[in-house]
């Protein structure tokens, strides 16, 4: 029997990140408030859109995606799911489900913005969100898996997010422009050129890939029930 991927993803989504079922739609609806903005300056509008895409949504995803495996570990129910599936596959599946859901919600919001607020490339913005969210999530997940506590991941992820938001110049000088999270938002705010956005986002994706790989290795070492 061929697996129904959509049904499976939906299950993973519901079980692993129930908060996301409310949070992502709520963020989407909340983002519609931006349509009340009456100013006509395009760069300010772009800045606000970048804020939603790079700052707000990824934080939400960080908070729902951090405990995809660890919530069940902390509730001591991990053993049940680990019997059916490898933990690393399970985690990746859940991560995919969360990101598909997030991309879907954000995509809807961006389409509304495109039609009613500002003209921009939706694909570019989705890529920007994906890179930032994956980088944040992968880092916090890795820390959480390393320490076996969700809070640790929350702390580190929030620290990186907050520092990038409050002191962008320090972060850029510390980690370089390619690993700075909020490329669009910062460059628009400082009226700089956006020519290196693709390199920046792919750098973040590259970093996220490495961190996900490390996380998988850590999960594999805890496999017990899968043959």
């Amino acid at each position, binding site marked *: 029997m061929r697996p129904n991927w959509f049904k499976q993803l939906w299950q993973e989504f519901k079980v692993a990140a129930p*908060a996301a079922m409310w*949070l992502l739609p709520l963020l989407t609806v909340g983002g519609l408030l931006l349509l009340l903005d009456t100013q006509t300056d395009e760069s300010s509008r772009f800045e606000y859109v970048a804020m939603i895409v790079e700052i*707000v949504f990824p*934080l*939400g995803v960080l*908070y*729902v995606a951090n*405990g995809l495996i660890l919530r069940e570990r902390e*509730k001591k129910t991990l053993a049940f799911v680990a019997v059916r599936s490898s933990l690393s596959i399970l985690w990746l599946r859940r991560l995919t489900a969360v990101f598909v859901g997030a991309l879907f919600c954000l995509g809807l919001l961006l389409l509304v913005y495109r039609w009613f607020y500002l003209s921009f490339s939706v694909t570019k913005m989705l890529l920007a969100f994906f890179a930032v969210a994956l980088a944040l999530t992968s880092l916090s997940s890795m*820390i959480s898996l390393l*320490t*076996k*506590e*969700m*809070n*640790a991941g*929350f*702390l*580190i992820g*929030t*620290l990186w*997010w*907050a*520092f990038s*938001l*409050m002191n962008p110049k320090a972060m850029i000088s510390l980690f370089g422009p390619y690993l700075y999270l909020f490329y669009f938002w910062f460059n628009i705010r400082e009226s700089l050129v956006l020519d290196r956005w693709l390199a920046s986002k792919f750098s973040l994706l590259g970093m996220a890939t490495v961190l996900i790989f490390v996380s998988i290795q850590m999960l594999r070492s805890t496999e017990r029930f899968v043959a």
Partner: protein
Amino acid sequence: MDRHLRTAMVVTQYEWKLQVRQRATWMMACLFFLIGWFSVDHAQLPMLSAIAIAESTAQGLGVFGSLFVVIFGATGLLREFGSTYDLLWGRSFSMWGYTIGKCIGTCVVIGTLLLPVGLWVGYWEVISHGVQGLAVQAVVWIVLLIPVLTLAVAVTWWIGVVFRHSVWTALVLVLVIGAILALQMDITHIVGFPIGAYVSPLIDFGPDTRLVKLHQNAFLVVSFLGLLAGYVLFRAKPLRLEPRIDLVSQWTSALLLFGLLTLLGLIVRQFRIERNLLLQDPRRTGSIDQGMESPCATLRSYRLALSIDLDNVHMEGAAEVLLKPTARVVQFPIELNQGLHISKIATNPSNLKTELVDNQLVLKIPQDFVQREVALVLEYAGNIRISRRLYDRQFRSPVESLAPFWPGGYLDRKTVFLVRDGNWHPFPWCAPNRLFVEVEGSSGNLIHTAGKIESSPDRFKLTWFQNPPLPLIALSRNYRMMNIDNAKVLVAPMHLSTRQWKEILTPYPVLMKSIQEYLLEETPPPQGHYKIVQVPLLKYGRYDPGLGVLFLKEFSPLDFLVPRHYVSSAGPLHSQELLYRRWVAERMMRTWWCRESICPKLQVTSSRGYEIGHLLLAQPQSLGEAEHAGLETLDALLSYAALRLGASLVGDEFITAEMSARNDALQDEMMWTEFLLPLIYSPETNRLMLRLHKLWEMVGPGPFWHMVRETHRIYGDQPVSAKEFSDFVKKTTGQALPLLND
């Protein structure tokens, strides 16, 4: 009550034990440590005051710590709300005890996590400032950090009870706090109440006790409010099997909430009232600066006698004025500090009628005495009141940062200083002909410019027989007197080594000697040592070349540091030491130029400037281009003269490099940011300075300095156009000001 207390204690203990066993908790301790570490500039750490170290770490920990506390608190405070804790709620226990225990437990854990960074900060405090540094750290952290973190815990509890979900709670609060901090939203403007506390150490001022106490009480009330609101919500929708809140408790809670909100409102209101009182400008309306005519020309004589009692922090003054009225009604504006009050007005002849209306003294003179000399004596007493905006950067606007210090003096039990132009006497814009000051107190650590001093063990008297200079008297038992080369120096104790003090202060006596040599032909050199005193609250130096007394404006030991990245480049223009001397020469030149009366438009270099370390010589857009118009010529002359004045300090190579840099800056504006030189961003000034440099090379130092002296004598601080100046140069030196192409 025992049951509640026991529950609270057990919950607190349990919470602490559970949390300290978790890895995330100790990760938070490491993050606190890292934040504390990065909150301080380690290169400047040995020179920071105890309060500065404690304040910067507390602010960093407060900002990021509140985010961590929210995440940490959301998980810990709402742990038992999870479904696996049903057994806990199966039996009733003290809700009050549980709520208070949870919050206190969380606070105790946070306190534990602050231990590593607290110990590190304490270590630096003790190393730099001795054991008293620890006390300073404790006070500053209690004032700044603890209220913010406890408020974060209380708000987390309150919001957590609303959402009953740790992820939601943490997310909402992180977004709100992040937005406030990132967008630099000052929500205090909405309610007029500062979220962060403040410390303003200056002489014996210290923190403003009353305001800080109100502020702390407000935080306490808000924390209680958060706790109570959370408890009420918790009981309103209880978990599982515990009893719902009964009617009596509901009403009690509602009354308590209302009471706390009222109390908070009263505290905020009282805070605003007291702060507004402190912010009141002691300068009254209708003063001379608002376009009124100066009465000085009508005064034939103006004598002052002042008596200062240090122990009682009290002064009494008598201003004796002689005038020859030309009309039957004469009006003078009076500007006396709000802490001083006129107690008596005596006239000679006695039948003159006097009236004080707002800030005007009205004299009604009988017809017989018109065109005859009459005398007036105003007696006043009190203490100089200094509004907070004059000494606390938090409250003063950019313009106020540059305005002269209007009170012109300060008095407390250990310190007194006076400068001539201050509203400690009724006509601050008029220079007295004679001044007599008597101080009850020891004359140790005293610097003055009086012509005569009579001292005894418990009092001393100073007399200025002729027009007193701008600096008058500075005495402080807090300060430290030392000898630096041929200067006697009185400075605030800043825990610097003698070598560091020498670096900071050595340029001054050298420049004072150069001024004597080049700019003061007819003034005899001062007897004995030069005297330099650092006087807080002043924005501009006051200099008396006759007696060699310099009142330096307030500064911190970091003023002489250039940014680290800047000194990494090679060349004299990137040398920290030489640049510092260059800027000191600039400051001294302008201080000398404005030695008879303060001229802020020149003593601020221009409408834009640069920072060296913490030395702000000019504030962007604060004076405004219009106000500075016409002074570019004088700016150029002063800047070039300063460069030559400090030639022995910076060397010929520096002079050549500066001129080359100014030439490059004419071609390429990007060079403005390359060099930390005075006024290099002004093409007009650069052009003129290059022309003056050519003039120097043509005529030599003698005629050049003669030209500078004459310019000061003729023009003072008045604007002069480039053409007019060019003609003046030709007249005084015999040589036309060369063009750049020559």
